[in-house]
């Protein structure tokens, strides 16, 4: 039944493109959120018949999809972020035609992400990463403004480099392993770990994924793309799109396929810590809220890679948990910036101030998201950062653990500065008439804030029930 997660959205898209489906097209933006909502329900309720992957449609049409604990966390994250993005689309994209077109491309991205997290073949993984990437190009450039086209162009150029690296890697792995399924490649790599071709293949694929994930030194496209993209696209890109194509694939391959490479772990630790430092320091100097959040995203992804670089089950658990938390709190911060853009027409923080009294829901949820990002207890971000730091300490990487803690303070500093400039102080005369964002954006913000607080409070139960089994992929 897992194929339904890919085939149902695809069938819906094809159906709506038929000439007689014009009446349905007008309702597409109302019907589309049902897809991610169903996905969330299926992950949370976990009906065994659906996830077993042996019956129903899979008997006739087996795409080799498999869902383990890591896939489930990703599917939940994808469901949450796509649902929220569709809520934002309903509020901020004007015109029925535009909303319909936007929703279509968004659903293509969702198909790509669902496929990516359910596949167990290196080449198919690459194909579905490209599905998500192609739809992301279109979504970034959707408004056809100069800055958006520039952001999309930078993303296309760097993605083309990533594509070359990944395809070269797949070709080399095929030569060595005579197959591309995860299990075949893993066995072949174990048998010939000293082969130069194997090392080149691993390095090329990892570099490609670091570009897709926007890590330092491949982060040049991230601020432009996130800041120039329409508000709903920023939510999708920062929340899940680049995480599914870059970071999830990195976790899957490093932990499951390339497992046991110490040199690779050291490279990841270094890239992770440099991303944390560069992202956090660059975020400090930004005056545009979306650019600041983009740099913050680079920094937080650094924490995920740092956890992965530990090479221990606890490190993997911390990385995956922080990936989920990042999807929630960064989506929330971008929804907040969308709310500000909707009411003020700008995301320049120098033109803001005192908006907490005018936009109480946006202000409160933004504070919660900021505190979670900085790792303040008992919010969800605290627990995932704690797991990563403990994993680093236990693995003997104490210097990295200290840097991770210190840079959390810098994270808190730039996010509190943002809060002060936007939501506290005196309201400028020009913003005296500013009011709370529209109902859909408030619902999206409150729902995401609820998840951040809920996951933080329920952490002890979640840790034993859902998170610890993820470490078993090693």
């Amino acid at each position, binding site marked *: 039944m897992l194929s339904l997660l*890919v085939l149902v959205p*695809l069938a819906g*898209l*094809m159906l709506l493109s038929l000439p007689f489906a014009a009446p349905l097209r007008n309702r597409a933006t109302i019907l589309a959120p049902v897809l991610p909502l169903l996905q969330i329900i299926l992950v949370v309720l976990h009906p065994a018949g659906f996830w077993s992957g042996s019956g129903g449609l899979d008997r006739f049409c087996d*795409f*080799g*999809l498999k869902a383990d604990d890591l896939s489930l966390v990703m599917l939940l994250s994808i469901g949450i972020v796509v649902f929220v993005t569709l809520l934002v689309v309903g509020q901020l994209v004007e015109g029925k*035609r*535009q909303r319909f*077109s*936007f929703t*279509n*491309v968004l659903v*293509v*991205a969702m*198909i*790509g992400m669902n*496929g990516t997290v359910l*596949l167990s*073949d290196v*080449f*198919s993984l690459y*194909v*579905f990463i*490209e*599905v998500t990437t*192609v*739809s992301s*190009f*279109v979504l970034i*450039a*959707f408004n*056809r403004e100069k800055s958006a086209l520039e952001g999309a162009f930078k993303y296309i150029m760097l993605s083309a480099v990533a594509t070359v690296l990944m395809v070269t890697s797949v070709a080399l792995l*095929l*030569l060595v392993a*005579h*197959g591309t399924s995860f299990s075949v490649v893993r066995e072949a790599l174990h048998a010939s770990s000293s082969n130069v071709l194997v090392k080149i293949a691993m390095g090329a694929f990892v570099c490609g994924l670091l570009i897709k994930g926007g890590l330092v030194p491949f982060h040049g496209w991230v601020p432009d793309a996130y800041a120039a993209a329409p508000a709903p696209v920023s939510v999708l890109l920062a929340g899940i799109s680049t995480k599914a194509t870059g970071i999830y694939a990195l976790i899957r391959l490093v932990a499951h396929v390339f497992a046991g490479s110490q040199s690779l772990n050291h490279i990841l630790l270094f890239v992770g810590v440099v991303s944390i430092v560069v992202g956090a320091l660059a975020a400090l100097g930004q005056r545009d809220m979306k650019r600041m959040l983009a740099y913050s995203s680079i920094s937080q992804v650094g924490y995920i890679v740092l956890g992965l670089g530990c090479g221990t089950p606890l490190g993997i658990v911390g990385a995956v948990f922080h990936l989920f938390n990042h999807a929630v709190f960064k989506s929330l911060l971008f929804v907040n910036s969308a709310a500000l853009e909707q009411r003020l027409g700008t995301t320049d923080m120098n033109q803001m101030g005192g908006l907490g009294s005018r936009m109480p829901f946006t202000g409160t949820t933004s504070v919660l998201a900021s505190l979670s990002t900085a790792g303040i207890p008992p919010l969800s971000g605290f627990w995932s950062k704690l797991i990563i730091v403990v994993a680093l300490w236990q693995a003997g990487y104490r210097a990295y653990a200290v840097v991770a803690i210190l840079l959390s303070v810098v994270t808190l500093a730039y996010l509190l500065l943002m809060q002060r400039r936007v939501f506290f102080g005196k309201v400028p005369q020009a913003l005296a008439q500013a009011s709370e964002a529209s109902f859909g954006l408030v619902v999206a913000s409150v729902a995401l804030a609820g998840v951040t607080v809920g996951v933080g409070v329920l952490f002890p139960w979640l840790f034993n029930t859902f998170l610890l089994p993820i470490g078993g992929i090693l």
Partner: protein
Amino acid sequence: MTAIDMVLLGALVLSAMATVMTARLLRAVIALAVTSVFVALLMFRLNANIAAVFELSVCAGLIPAIFITSIGLTQRLTPEALAVRRKERLRTVWYLPLIVIVAGIALSRVHIPLETAAALAPAPAGDVRSVLWALRHTDLLGQIVVLLGGVFGVAVLIMEVRHEQ
């Protein structure tokens, strides 16, 4: 490496350079299609027959067709604008032939075991149909979704402009 391979590689490099250096989009697409034809021929020479068939049908056939459809939706450049574009293009990529020559000299001094690579390539598990429908049908599904995304992209980014105009 035989003389035929050398000729094919040389033609491949020249057509790839023409793709990047030409100022007209349509000519760039045609040069790209020609590049794909040479890539396909080299794939045949390396015993990668199925990959060559795909390169010919998809990269030299379908993709240029999509490009040309998209270009058909854009406005033609005026002679003055084209002259400006030519100068810009030359200014941007003037160093490309130099890089190609230097890289060619460097690579000619390195032994690349193409024959070994061709011999190492796994034999296809069946004919194109069985590979496509039995072994790699997940990738086929992915390709369908990529194409769908591309079509929506053209609709969103180019046809909407026409609609607004």
